[in-house]
């Protein structure tokens, strides 16, 4: 189960978990929409590390191909998301997500 000498799959999964939890923490803590986007990128990359580690353990390149697709989705998400942020800034002059309370009763 060793990926590198003395480094098992568990080490990589713990690293991936730590980065994912950091991403969750950032999305919940920061109110700036751009920062929230960056934390989402961090979470996606945590998942990518886990996928590559599993692909190494199982001797199957499919995991690496999945990482490609995650990168594709991340790039598309950033392109559309930042365009939405630009619209938001143009209308509200802020990127604070607490300012988006028009639907609040």
């Amino acid at each position, binding site marked *: *189960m060793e*990926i*590198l*000498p003395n*480094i098992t*799959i*568990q080490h*990589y*999964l713990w*690293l991936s*978990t*730590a*980065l994912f*939890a*950091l*991403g*969750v923490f*950032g999305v*919940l*803590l*920061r109110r*700036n929409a*751009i*920062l929230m986007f*960056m*934390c989402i*990128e*961090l979470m996606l*990359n945590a998942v*990518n590390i886990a996928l*590559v580690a599993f*692909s*190494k*353990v*199982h*001797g*199957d*390149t*499919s995991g*690496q*191909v999945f*990482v*490609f*697709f995650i*990168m*594709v989705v991340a*790039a598309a998400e*950033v*392109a*559309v998301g*930042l*365009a939405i*942020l*630009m*619209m938001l*800034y143009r209308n509200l002059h*802020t*990127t*604070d997500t*607490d300012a988006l309370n028009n639907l609040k009763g």
Partner: protein
Amino acid sequence: MSLTEIAFYFLSFLAIFSGLAVILSRNPVHSVLYLIVTFFSIAGHYFLMNAQFLAAVHIIVYAGAIMVLFLYVIMMLNLNEEQEEKTKSWVKIAAVVSSCSIMLILVSLISKSTIVMGKAPMADDAGLVQNLGKVLYKDYLLPFELASVLFLAAMVGAVYLSKKETSKS
């Protein structure tokens, strides 16, 4: 401790600490730069796991394209420390509690579970573009084409959204 072990721990600590710095730094530009450091250390991990092509693509796509896009938007919106967000204290506590509980759940799950080994260990050259290309174009042809449609849709959406409205309704 062998060299690869040292490299693993160094890259892991670099990734985690710069990830923490992304969240905690007040200036968004600094956050972007720390995120680039995180991405480089993740690319180093890919190199360690013999996913060479993936590491190169990761650096090109993330550090080269996505983070430049982020920097552009931050500089265009002129965000800096003065427009500081005020996070309520109960939100801070809730963020700490929920992220720690997610981490706890995942860590306990990982340490309890046994991972089934594959039949054969991965060949050293499996991460090169030659072998990845074969898998991508043979087994994953339909998702590949769908990804191109997704990109087209994203491009149209981004251009449409960021276009200035000419007629006010």
